[in-house]
């Protein structure tokens, strides 16, 4: 009799979990993000907080700083007008899409490549940065290009598409997926892997901060970054695309590229300038 009770309890709780899971997907899509943002005069952006040059929280003043932050501010001004405010929420490669889906953020500008798989789940703006995947190794390493990774261990962050690319290009490489890029680098430093892989801009930021490490082999993929927007938010997507075009047209975009990537050794910033 006692056992029967437990089984009933188990089944009831499972059913409860399943019901809750089922009703999570509806409510957000019925709201218009652009309307809400105009009313509050604020766009909430999901940004990276741990990537130098891109999006980094400065420990001294607690402010987010980086190329994507400045770009998000510029686009916000174009969409909402001069007094429009950009609010920033820290996301990781893993948490950004769930946070967008459940409405915590309005848009993702967090080194996210436009990929067919992702397009099934969210919408993308036009590309705002021409990124590609590369490799970071310790200076003096025998690894010279992505082909040398076969049989070696590579660290990366969970939730980034870099892992799939490595599986395709160097099928015999072992990939360790760590919670974020900082940990992937720490794992590389403590010898858990021989190389680290992800987008070149992210690695550039790491190479600037860690003198003993360098990029090798150039980029071996083209993965333009796009701003992530929820499905069914056509108005908001149009407004963002329009804002982005204006930012590129009036020269702000190229100024930002020069500001953040003009002085990174080994990084050809001319490739990413827009006309």
């Amino acid at each position, binding site marked *: 009799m006692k056992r029967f009770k437990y089984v009933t309890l*188990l089944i009831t709780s499972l059913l409860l979990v399943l019901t809750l899971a089922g009703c999570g997907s509806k409510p957000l899509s019925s709201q218009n993000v652009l309307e809400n943002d105009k009313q509050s005069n604020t766009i909430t952006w999901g940004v990276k907080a741990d990537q130098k040059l891109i999006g980094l929280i400065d420990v001294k003043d607690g402010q987010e700083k980086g190329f994507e932050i400045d770009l998000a501010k510029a686009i916000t001004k174009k969409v909402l007008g001069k007094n429009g405010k950009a609010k920033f929420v820290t996301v990781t490669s893993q948490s950004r*899409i*769930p946070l967008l*889906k459940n409405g915590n953020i309005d848009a993702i500008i967090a080194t996210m490549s436009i990929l067919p*798989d992702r397009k099934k789940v969210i919408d993308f703006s036009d590309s705002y940065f021409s990124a590609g995947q590369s490799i970071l190794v310790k200076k003096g390493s025998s690894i010279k290009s992505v082909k040398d990774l076969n049989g070696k261990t590579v660290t990366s962050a969970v939730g980034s598409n870099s892992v799939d690319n490595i599986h395709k290009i160097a099928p015999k490489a072992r990939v*360790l997926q760590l919670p974020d890029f900082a940990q992937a680098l720490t*794992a590389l*430093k403590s010898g*858990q892997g021989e190389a680290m892989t992800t987008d070149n801009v992210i690695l550039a930021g790491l190479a600037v901060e860690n003198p003993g490490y360098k990029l090798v082999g150039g980029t071996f993929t083209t993965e333009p970054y796009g701003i992530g927007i929820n499905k069914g938010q056509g108005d908001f997507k149009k407004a963002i695309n329009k804002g982005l075009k204006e930012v590129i047209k009036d020269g702000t975009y190229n100024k930002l590229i020069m500001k953040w990537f003009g002085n990174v050794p080994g990084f050809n910033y001319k490739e990413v300038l827009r006309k």
Partner: protein
Amino acid sequence: MIKLLVDNWSEFISGFGWTVLSSIVALFFSLIIGSLFAILEVMPSKVARVIGNVYVEIFRNIPLLVITMFFYLVIPLYVVKINGFTAGTIGLTIYTSAFIAETVRSGINSVDVGQMEASRAQGMTFWQAMRYIVLPQAFKLVIPPLGNQFINLVKNSSVLAFVAGFDLMYQGNAIASTSFQTVNTYIIVGLFYLVITLPISYYMQHLERKLA
């Protein structure tokens, strides 16, 4: 959800396998180490008691993730190279052993002092008295809290995900971030954990009824 499970079956199963392996290894060693330190804590020698206390208080009061990160990142730099799975399992063993030590010690303490005194009066050594008289009674008393520790151990094994230990949680993270079916993935992961923990739960209940 069924499709997600079928599509990623091999990942889920390999993650499940590593979680089970890590749990079994950690359970075995933490039970032995924990019991040893529990005995140290109740020994007549003051030095032994201090050693036991220091071990328990240090590892009981440091977060599991910190212990694991230490073995994953610091030890390879200075001592010997260990991979994520090993580092995670060592961390899990040490952390859980501190809790098991406290649990077993409480069991030993709740056995009447007269039992130990009588055994010693019969000419038994401290270890003989422990082995044949006190410990069998102590373990019977602490079966329910020990079961709690075992279940916690299985759930805590998800720490392996943070050091790329290829366990269930690691695979869950990877699947969730490629399929974007976050909710469904973690429900499946939760069910897989239940497959391990519920039998332990039932077995401990059975043991309790049989022995007590």
